């Protein structure tokens, strides 16, 4: 058993380093991930500057709309970091590189772990980029370095869990185009979260949606860390939501991966 775990760690480590290399050596990868949340942060914080006057915003304690908006854009970044994560493994399935790996004496599932584990780092680092940029633009981080680290961990965990929404369609359809298109279907979940307005300003049905929206749990855990202080209840809820989401999506991913490589 320990030998098996040792093998998995060794194989996933080196395959993971390769995945990271593939990511950072192509700047288009990370520029594309940062760009959209950054544009939203910049444009919306100006466009809806006065939205903060509405009664629903007062309770949050955010001093400006930018401060309200920033946590959501950090979550968006983690979301974009993994939205197309199934595509690269699919390309290698198609061009035969996966076969090359499978013809070596490694555990098949290491190939999947080697793709999945680096997503923690990719999501966390990308989210960190937006966190830093939002501070430059005027947002605050009340809990300091430790709070920032906690935000990155949450973003990383979310990225790993959410990646299943790309892996499962990728493995089942075996088509990059389908994977790209299907990931669009998940965008409303991000847009309907509390990234832009608090629940108090939403219609009833959207409030119900957000009681179940994992992205909302993530945002609601990050926001206090930035604007007020540690809210352990919110962090606990976020971790629980991410745990459930990750278990469900990654079980499905594992099943779809086994089916693909059977």
């Amino acid at each position, binding site marked *: 058993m320990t030998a098996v775990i040792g093998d998995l760690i060794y*194989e996933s480590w*080196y*395959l993971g380093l*390769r995945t990271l*290399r*593939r990511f950072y*050596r*192509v700047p288009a990868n990370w520029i594309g991930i940062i760009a959209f949340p950054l544009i939203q942060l910049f444009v919306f914080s100006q466009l809806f500057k006065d939205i903060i006057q509405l009664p629903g915003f007062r309770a949050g304690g955010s001093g400006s709309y930018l401060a309200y908006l920033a946590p959501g854009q950090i979550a968006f970044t983690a979301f974009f970091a993994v939205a197309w994560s199934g595509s690269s493994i699919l390309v290698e399935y*198609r*061009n*035969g*590189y996966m*076969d*090359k*790996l*499978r*013809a*070596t*004496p*490694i555990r098949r599932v290491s190939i999947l772990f080697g793709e999945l584990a680096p997503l923690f780092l990719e999501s966390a680092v990308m989210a960190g980029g937006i966190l830093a940029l939002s501070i430059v633009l005027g947002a605050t981080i009340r809990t300091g370095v430790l709070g920032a680290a906690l935000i990155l961990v949450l973003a990383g965990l979310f990225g790993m869990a959410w990646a299943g929404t790309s892996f499962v369609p990728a493995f089942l*359809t*075996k*088509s990059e*185009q*389908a994977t790209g298109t299907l990931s669009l279907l998940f965008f409303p979940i991000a847009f309907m979260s509390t990234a832009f307005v608090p629940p108090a300003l939403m219609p009833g049905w959207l409030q119900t949606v957000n009681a179940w929206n994992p992205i909302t749990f993530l945002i609601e855990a990050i926001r206090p860390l930035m604007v007020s202080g540690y809210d352990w209840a919110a962090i606990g809820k976020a971790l629980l939501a991410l745990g459930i989401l990750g278990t469900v999506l990654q079980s499905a991913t594992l099943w779809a991966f086994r089916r693909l490589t059977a």
Partner: protein
Amino acid sequence: MTSPVIEVQDLTKVYSGGTRAVDGITFSIQPGELFGFLGPNGAGKTTTIRVLATLLRATSGIARVAGLDVGTHPADVRRRLGLAMQTPTLDTFATGRENIELIGRMHRVPAAELKRRTDELLELMGLAQVARKMAGTYSGGMRRRLDLACALVHRPEVLILDEPTEGLDPQSRIALWGELERISKDGTTMLLTTHYMEEADRLCNRVAIIDNGRIVVDGSPAQLKAGIGADTVTLQLDAHGPEDLARQQTNVRDQLHGFEPLEAVTPESFGVSLSIRGAGRALPDLMRSLDRNGDGVRIVGLAVSQPTLDDVFLKYTGRRIRTEAADQPIILGW
């Protein structure tokens, strides 16, 4: 007699669509042999290789590598195999060195040994100068050599190469043949597939001709060619239009009626080709027979050639091997 390194008995693979890609293949490869699978695209070569490389399960039959069943001991088989598929499969965002090292690590080559082995292979394959460049920037020939280096990093007992020179320019092909001969001399057992006759003829100690999922004949290239017996004499005819050509071809046939060493007359666009046993000795008699009828046949060129594997293929399958590149199927659906 030593035990074979690769042993395949009555191997069959039927794909879920019902295609019988491999239909009862039996062969074995002895240590140190360079064995070639020769056949057209779609003959079942790649399917057989994928079964041996543990990437595909056989429908029935036995396949063993170093005495180990590929179905029940896949990990042990993988440790002993080096594999290079039809198109080089590389991590294009990794350098040449990184590509070799990753495969070496997956094979658990110890770190110090891996460093030494990688240097050695980069040197051997002429890639030392570009070792720090991304594999995506490599030319076709360089990609092939890097792919081969990856397959050799763990010093496999058996090297399996699917169409190793497919898509290469003639110069790179000849260079790669040199590498393969050297690897074979070092004692590595090799199985390669090809649809290039010259390749099988030049490299392999033993060739199996495979067509429609079956081995139609196997033996050394020399044996197979000897089995053909006859040489080929091609006559280039000076003809004015197709009717004249047809008339002259008929004349050749008529004039050679009863000419004892003659086995076959095949009309060609340039004239006619004759299948003749011991053509060298029979040539003077042949020319005299053709001369009997004055200007009925106007010969402007003549060539004598020994049998080739192409002729062997023609004899056993009834057609010439197609040499066009494999079409990649387009995956439709989603």
